[in-house]
């Protein structure tokens, strides 16, 4: 029976919590490790978690994974509370969730491409929202918001997400087959 995208039952509650905890811990841990950076793009592998959880479990799980995961990551690192960036990360996980009804087989190239398209959209919408809200609350101008906030965040998230989400989907396909869900 095909799951509906708006469902939020026991399964979604648990995987939203897992996604949030994973995103928070991996963000904190990969910050703590001295990861190399390539040019201006930082290695932020953790951003693939809310995107992946959104693709597999739906938009609500993706939103909570990103939103709460960012709060947890900031709480672990002592960075305070940045509400617009928490919501932006939530949107970054939520938008790929709308690809869930379009994906039948997690190993098919077509499914991986669809997921990647929604990953790109998610990063643009999520980081765009956060950067736009900085204009309203902090009073920065559009150029600073776009060049100083949106571009570095979105480019990093897109590159990390587009590469790692398909890898996670292929790995998950074996688990999904085994669990029968």
């Amino acid at each position: 029976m095909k799951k509906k995208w708006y469902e939020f039952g026991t399964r979604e509650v648990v995987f939203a919590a897992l996604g949030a905890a994973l995103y928070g811990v991996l963000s904190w841990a990969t910050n703590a490790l001295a990861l190399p950076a390539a040019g201006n793009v930082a290695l932020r592998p953790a951003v693939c978690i809310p995107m992946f959880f959104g693709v597999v479990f739906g938009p609500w799980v993706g939103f909570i994974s990103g939103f709460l995961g960012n709060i947890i990551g900031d709480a672990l690192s002592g960075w305070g509370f940045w509400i617009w960036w928490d919501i932006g990360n939530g949107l970054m996980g939520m938008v790929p969730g709308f690809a869930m009804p379009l994906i039948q087989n997690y190993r098919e190239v077509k499914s991986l491409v669809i997921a990647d398209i929604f990953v790109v959209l998610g990063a643009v919408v999520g980081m765009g929202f956060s950067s736009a809200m900085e204009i309203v609350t902090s009073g920065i101008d559009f150029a600073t918001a776009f060049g100083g906030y949106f571009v570095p965040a979105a480019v990093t998230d897109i590159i990390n997400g587009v590469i790692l989400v398909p890898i996670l989907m292929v790995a998950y396909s074996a688990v999904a087959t085994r669990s029968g869900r």
Partner: protein
Amino acid sequence: MLVTWKYKERNTIIQRLDPRARWIFLLCVLFSAIQFWDIRFLLFFFGISLAHFFLSKLTWKETRRVLIFVFVLVVFIVGIGAILTGRGGPGEALTMFRETKNIIWQVEWVVPWVGWTIRPNVSVEKLVFAATQIVRMLSISILFIPLAFTFDPSQYGVTFRGLGLPDKFAVSMDLAFRFVPTLGRDFSITLDSQRARGYEVEKLEGGLIAQIRKMAPLIVPVTINAIVGGEDIVNAMDLRCFGLRKRTWLQKLEYKSRDYVLIGLGVLILAGSIFITKGLKLGDFWVPAWAPGLFGF
């Protein structure tokens, strides 16, 4: 790798307040502060942020990383940007910058090939605007920094449930905080296991795409293990009829009189701000009359 929260029990007045009351107050102050561009009003909110910070009894050692980051961001990136461009504020500020005669420094530059003339300048009004921007951003940033250090992670779920979030979302929040130490331990085990196999995450080689792909041996096992374990938790919760009835919580939050006072204060600040900005039409960008005199104008 031990995952520990920055939160610590400090027995301060801030931590004795109901977390719901704190959230309501902080959100009221946030939505009040963003309505103003007059530095005189913004200094009031800056005072509230500083009071919240100091009453939390945080140490420099705990907060220096985030404070240095905020300071650099606000002063150098936003402040200098405001001085040079004057953009980002309300429309009347831009008009003031264009019409001002109080120019401290100006340069004229002709763009090659297209022949455009650009005249960036620094004026008294832009300096005041930069100071206003800095105070505004610092007020908002510092307001929420103490939360990570003073908000008990075990209370997130019951707090947001008390603020009106649906039961299932609140349970998800509680579960997420519960999973953090477990997943931290799993990450540590996976990292050590991969290192024993010759995987060195600090020395990834290759181009950007290759380096990101090489993160997969760290990310994939932790994620898939978590999902497999999650299926057992789902079954356990379903067997205990999760979601069929309204949920009760282990911790019960109760408002005390000081919490009502705090909520009332927050609502008063918000209502007052709306009245001042929308009713009295005050709070727009303001340049002190004595400011030009400081620069000989």
